[in-house]
Structures are given as structure tokens and as C-alpha cells.
């Protein structure tokens, strides 16, 4: 059991970091660029809203069913659902900070748009986004678990929690631990990430108000 779990968490870690980088970078950069171009910004907003309007799990199952369940497709599908969330939070924060006078001050000193994005906006926007990314991480673990449980997650030999839970279902009466142990670890991981995320958000909120 234990090597399976450690293997699982290792591949999980890889998976999560892949999901995070793919969702995070386009989300935040697109929004930053768009902030300076209102027309494009509203076009992106419409796109983001239409992504959010799709039924979440059903579409993911459909895509994975047709495109084939492998790690690349799984990362792609999960990223697809996390981009809007990152986009929204970085957009909201960018808009908030873009109005502050230090941005005008930087422009008054002749700073270029790129410099303002990197030096003035990004350091402020990255903190709430980082706090939020912990919450997103727990969401993606849950989503992956759901997909695996429904049979469109990673195929064996790659182990995942959802798949392990699903495998144990048939023997639930005789050996409940086969499902129970991965469920417990998934639960604890998600809980920890949520608690960390909440804590970090509180921390950044306090900072922002005192500044």
C-alpha cells in the first residue's frame, strides 16, 4: 500500500505543478496585457465567461472520452477549467492596483508598460493569486479524483487516488480499506491546502489594508 501511495503522490505532485504552470501563466499574463487594451479585455472576458458557462464535469468527461485519457489531455482539460479562475482574480487585482497613484507616478517617471507590469503591478497581484492558487490546487485534485473515479482519468499503470478509490469500490464490504486509505489521504491533502490557502489569504488581506 505505502509504495503505491508514495508513487501516487509523486505523480500527483508532477501533475499539479504541470497544471499550475499551464493555468497560471496564461491567466495572469493575458490579463495584464489586456488591462491596457480595453477592447481586447472585454473580448477575453466574453471568452472566459463562455468557458465558465460550460457544464464542468460533463464536458471534461466528453473530451477525455474522445481524445483519450492520458496525462497530457488530463492536464489540458483541468487547466482549461482553472484559467478562468486565475484570470478573474488577477484581473480584479490588476484593476484595483492599476488605479493606484503609484502606477501614474511610475508613468510620470517614464516607465514603460512592461516595466510597470513587472515592477509595480505583478508584485502586488502575485500575492493574492498565490494564495488563491492553493485553493485552486485542492479543487484540481478533487476534479482529477472525480474524473479518475468515473473512469476517464489516467489509465493504469499510473496510479491516482481517484482510480484507487474506484478500484476498491467492488470490494468495499470485504476490504473497505482499499478505498478508505486513498480517500483519507485525498481528504487530508485537500483540507490542508484549503486551510493553507485560507490562512494565506487572511495574511495578504491584512497586509493590503494596513498598507
Amino acid at each position, binding site marked *: 500500500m505505502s509504495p503505491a501511495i508514495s508513487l501516487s503522490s509523486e505523480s500527483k505532485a508532477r501533475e499539479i505543478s504541470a497544471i499550475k504552470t499551464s493555468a497560471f501563466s496564461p491567466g495572469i499574463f493575458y490579463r495584464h496585457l489586456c488591462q491596457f487594451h480595453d477592447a481586447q479585455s472585454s473580448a477575453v472576458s466574453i471568452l472566459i465567461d463562455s468557458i465558465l458557462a460550460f457544464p464542468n464535469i460533463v464536458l471534461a468527461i466528453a473530451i477525455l472520452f474522445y481524445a483519450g485519457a492520458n496525462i497530457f489531455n488530463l492536464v489540458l482539460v483541468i487547466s482549461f477549467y482553472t484559467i478562468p479562475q486565475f484570470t478573474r482574480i488577477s484581473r480584479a487585482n490588476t484593476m484595483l492596483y492599476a488605479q493606484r497613484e*503609484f502606477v501614474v*507616478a511610475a508613468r510620470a*517617471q*517614464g516607465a514603460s508598460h512592461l*516595466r510597470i507590469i513587472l*515592477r509595480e503591478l505583478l*508584485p502586488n497581484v502575485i500575492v493574492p493569486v498565490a494564495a488563491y492558487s492553493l485553493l485552486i490546487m485542492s479543487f484540481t485534485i478533487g476534479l482529477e479524483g472525480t474524473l479518475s473515479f468515473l473512469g476517464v482519468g489516467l489509465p493504469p499503470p499510473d496510479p491516482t487516488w481517484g482510480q484507487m478509490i474506484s478500484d476498491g469500490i467492488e470490494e468495499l464490504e470485504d476490504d473497505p480499506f482499499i478505498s478508505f486509505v486513498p480517500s483519507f489521504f485525498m481528504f487530508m491533502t485537500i483540507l490542508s491546502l484549503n486551510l493553507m490557502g485560507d490562512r494565506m489569504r487572511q495574511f495578504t488581506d491584512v497586509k493590503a489594508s494596513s498598507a
Partner: protein
Amino acid sequence: MTDNTLLEVEDITVEYVTQGHRFAAISGVTLDIAEGETVGLVGESGCGKSTTARAIIQLPTPTAGKVRFEGQELTELSHAEMRPIRQRLQIIFQDPVSSLNPRRRVKDIIAEPLFISGMKDKAEIDRKVREVLNAVSMDPDITMDRRPHQFSGGQCQRICIARALIMEPKLIVCDEPVSALDVSVQAQILNLLEDMKERYGLTLLFISHDLAVVKNISDRVAVMYLGKFCELADSARIYEAPAHPYTAGLMATFPEIGDKVTNSGPALTGEIPSPLNPPSGCRFRTRCPQAEEKCAAEEPEFREIEPGHLVACHFPLVGE
């Protein structure tokens, strides 16, 4: 216009579009500032003082009109072409806390104009930052590694002034630099600005809604109402004999210790009309105690009633 004119603002208009309506935040503002001079700009909230300040530094570029700084036309320059000029044309904002990035250290904030100008020599940057911090009476050793939220409003404004000074500018536009501060701190910052003016040979455009503050610091004072200038004169003259009824009204709302005659004119009543739909003719006529038919029909010209004293009124209280 004299030979040593540093800044010429000629007939600038700034228009905004809100909810499909175009409106002019300022229209037809003309002002010359000579080198070494301090010009005060007063008016009620929302009359376009800050818009004027931002139009001068080209953020945003005025919709119409010209701004010449050291003889160079600014309105047609690109962002990159403006960069070297911005070093000599600085601005200080009303809210010192908001104008400092909370995530950066004071030394980086103050050195930012140096970084932008491409200076790489760390020792030289450090030396200059220390020099301006000393100039604004802040201890560099204590200040440099801290972040803005560790300072009070007055200290933050000193940091803003240090940042404005580091490129040794010619002109600093002060957009209500003391309005957000306590009265005791206001005096310190005003004295500091005066000292810096002397030390660095600055020219100031000083914007405020507080007549007392402007009176003490300015050589000349311009009064603004609803996006237009209504009076411009020497500081002493305008306080002694205001020609525009609006200026007189403002003076009447401004008490002074030892004043025997409190009524130099009727105090202002009513609200500022919306700039979306300014009154016809003279913009002040809806609140003016001496408005006549002519004021509604015809817009008064901004004209000279005595040397150096300009007023936009059909019936000025002095001169002619």
C-alpha cells in the same frame, strides 16, 4: 510671456467620455510659468485642477491645445520621446500612501527614476538616494530598507518629494501635496518644499483647494472654476483685491486671524453645476450674485484688467 518662460500651457482641453457623453474636464486653459516661479492653482473639488496637472505631464495628453516645456512641444511626443523630458518634469500626488508601491522598498522607490534613465552604477545610485533622503530630513540608514506602510503620511510625502527630486527636475507639479495631511504636518511639508525650491532651483505649480496654503507659497495665483480659469494675478493682489466674483466668494469663505471685515464679498452658495452640462455663457453665472442677462448670453473673455491681472468676467470687481 518672458524670455525665461519654462512652461507654456496654451489653450488646452481635456475631454472624457462617460456613459456615451463627451465632456470637457478642462477647456481652454492657458498659463505661462516662468523659471523659479511658484504658481498656485485653486478651486473647488472637481473643477479640473488635477486634470490640468496631469495634462501638463501628458498623462493623459490633452485632447487639444499645446504644452511647451523648455520651448519643446510635448503633446506630439511619444511615450519614449517623453522619457528624457520627464526627468525634468516631476509630479507629487495628493495621497502619499497611494503613490508609493506597498511592495517595494523605499530605496527602490526613490531610485526608480534613476533605473528608468538607465543608470547602473550601484554605488552612485546609493549615494544619490542617500543625498535626497537627507535633503528631505529622513535618516537614510533607517529609511532605505523599509516599506511604505511603515511610515506616516507626512513621512510618505517626504519620500515622494525625494523621488521627485532625485533627477534634479526643473518643474514639479504639486497636485494637492498637503491636502491629505494633518495641519501640523502640512506646515512641515510646505516648509520643506520651500527649502527644496531654494536648494534645487525649482519651479512649482502648486495645486490646492486651500487658499491659506496657496497664499503663503505662491508668487502668482490662478483660480479655476468648472474647467476654466476665472482669474490669474499676483498672489498679493488677488488676495487684496479679487476681481472675479467667484474669487471674492472663495476669499469670503476663508477666515483669517485678526480679520475685522469678514465680508470681502458674499460667501458662495449653491452647488457646482455638472461639467457634463455647463451653464451657457459665463460658467459661474448660476451662483454669481451679480449675474445679468449678458452673462447667460455671452461667454466672458479671459482678459487683462490691469498689468498681470487677468479675469474672465463681464463685470469685474476691480480695474478698468
